């Protein structure tokens, strides 16, 4: 619980596509304009910005500096950047607003996954001695974790297909289970799409938030935790970092109505549900989640956006989750609440 009320008051995302011909700067220019305009705000009203993006995916050192062109950073204002999903940019903005001297922050997440082949790019992020030289790719790690989750009785290939059908709103489970494996036990429907896109979110401190919108989505709990970088040293059928982050964010303080989980692979949703102790009363990923669109570096921020939408539409309590690293290495949990 924070001493200063801080709330999400709006957000916007660009069109989510397989490959965009827009630069990241242009995606952000549009996302920020679309997020602030309905609130009656201009760029001059923004006191602090934090951008989440990844030079490594763009293939250009300091690419985040040209992204500042989308902000209108003059007269000079407080800008920050995280080389992480925009959900972590939101975390930084939430901390910054608690200092109490400013009222409005904008955070973004942006990425263009279409720039390269994920199977060749991501192994280079892994442990440089034992994993990168083997070309250990994200699909391989997901499959190894999926098998561990299945062995532990938390998922079955059928329940994973059910997650896919529910999230994407299409497909027939029996038919999907006849398809060949891409990485056993994962089939194509267990995998996220490759998506280009960006999202921007507006945060405001209590009184300002209440002036700007009827029903702010108050952030009542926010925490993130990380585990060892090498999945060799982790229990793959568990996610202790998610459990701790959820506990510290106050998951037990009330019923969760909607949960938006950044589960790029079907088994990840089932593992996260299990770790978070969700029963059927919790509506998980009504947005379709990362299986419907997976704009890297914005996927987590979008989860928080959809959770905020639940509050804007009259809901009382929603949980959003974001993750980073192989096999759910680092996990972030944000709890949003409405007040009558």
């Amino acid at each position: 619980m924070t001493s200063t009320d801080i709330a999400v008051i709006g957000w916007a995302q660009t069109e989510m596509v397989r490959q965009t011909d827009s630069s990241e700067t242009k995606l952000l220019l549009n996302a920020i304009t679309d997020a602030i305009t309905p609130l009656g705000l201009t760029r001059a009203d923004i006191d602090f910005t934090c951008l989440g993006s990844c030079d490594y995916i763009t293939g250009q050192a300091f690419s985040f500096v040209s992204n500042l062109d989308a902000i209108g950073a003059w007269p000079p204002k407080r800008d920050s950047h995280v080389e992480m999903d925009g959900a972590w940019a939101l975390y930084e903005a939430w901390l910054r607003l608690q200092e109490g001297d400013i009222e409005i922050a904008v955070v973004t997440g942006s990425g263009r996954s279409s720039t390269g082949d994920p199977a060749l790019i991501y192994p280079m992020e892994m442990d440089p001695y034992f994993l990168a030289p083997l070309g250990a790719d994200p699909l391989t790690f997901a499959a190894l974790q999926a098998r561990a989750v299945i062995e532990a009785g938390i998922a079955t290939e059928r329940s994973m297909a059910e997650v896919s059908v529910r999230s994407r709103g299409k497909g027939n489970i029996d038919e999907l289970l006849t398809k060949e494996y891409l990485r056993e036990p994962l089939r194509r429907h267990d995998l996220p799409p490759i998506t280009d896109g960006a999202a921007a979110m507006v945060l405001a401190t209590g009184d300002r938030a209440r002036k700007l919108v009827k029903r702010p989505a108050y952030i009542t709990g926010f925490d993130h935790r990380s585990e060892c970088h090498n999945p060799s040293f982790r229990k793959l059928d568990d996610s202790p970092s998610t459990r701790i982050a959820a506990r510290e964010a106050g998951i037990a303080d009330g019923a969760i109505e909607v949960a938006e989980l950044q589960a790029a692979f079907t088994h990840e949703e089932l593992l996260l549900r299990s770790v978070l102790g969700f029963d059927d009363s919790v509506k998980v990923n009504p947005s379709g989640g990362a299986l419907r669109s997976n704009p890297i570096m914005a996927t987590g921020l979008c989860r928080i956006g959809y959770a905020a939408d639940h509050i804007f539409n009259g809901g009382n309590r929603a949980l959003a989750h974001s993750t980073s690293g192989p096999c759910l290495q680092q996990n972030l949990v944000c709890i949003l609440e409405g007040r009558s």
Partner: protein
Amino acid sequence: MTRFVESTITFPYKRSLGPVVGMFMTALTEQRILGIRNGTDVIVPPMEWDPATGAELAHDFVEVGPAGTVESWTWVPKPSAQHPLTHPFAFAFIRLDGATTPLLHAVDAGSASALSVGTRVAPRWKGTRIGHITDIDAFVLGETPEVAGPDHGPSETPVSMMEYQASITYNNPVPVAADRVVEASKAQRLLGQVCPVCARVYAGGRGYCPIDAVELGTEHEVDLPDKGTITNYALVTPVQYPGQTETEPFARVFVLLDGTDVILSYQPVIELAASDVHVGVRVAAVWASPAEDIDEGAAMGGAYGALIGWMPTGEPDHTDPDLVNRIF
């Protein structure tokens, strides 16, 4: 139609291994696999620190394996160029006998049907071992280690370094504004863009006014003068990293274009020795002849397209003492 440009970035890394990973890699050349003791656990691959607490571990090594048990596995029907085998294989977490954590490696099992959780595997060593995780060619089914081809024996000296070639190919769109300035350069024109809100002028195909956060299009284009004055400069002594083509110290200068507020940064100079570069030199743009190949890529600062640099005009220096402050 937006143009996409493919570019490959390659970093040939040399990594120092340190006392623990170095010991592990040296042992690989001896066909031995080492773990490190962490309380009652034996961690493989070994780390210098307890993965849970970060506490430094004593260098108490334990030989494990060589055989082990598959804990989780997946089948790779189409290996990538980075994978250790070129034909279909499994990636598996293998708990080597005596270890409490699993090692990720390839299993050359023939087909997916040969594998299950609990399958026993043993290493197939490369004949030539250099102290690298791929000194184990792959694991094979069964209890017995193998050597692929003639065995050239262990390393004569402890292994302390490893090489890793990181190479990534990107396919990025070239912003229209960047293409437009390159195209204009072929006609020996310096193209700028003027912001419709604040009237500031930008060069180099930026495409945005960063002050007002508005996109600049063809309707905002203006021609800029191709003469100016050096406001500031750096003399660069080239470090011979891979890919460096410069061998002698060279200058990069900032040029303020005549009658404007526009600075072109990181520009090369031509017919001006590095030792003669100074603030206030009057310069003019030098253009590639139509017969020369030019870099069509997007300009990230510096010269671009047919603009290859700046040479002295021979006019007297500009002596404004504030000039040196102009780098933006």
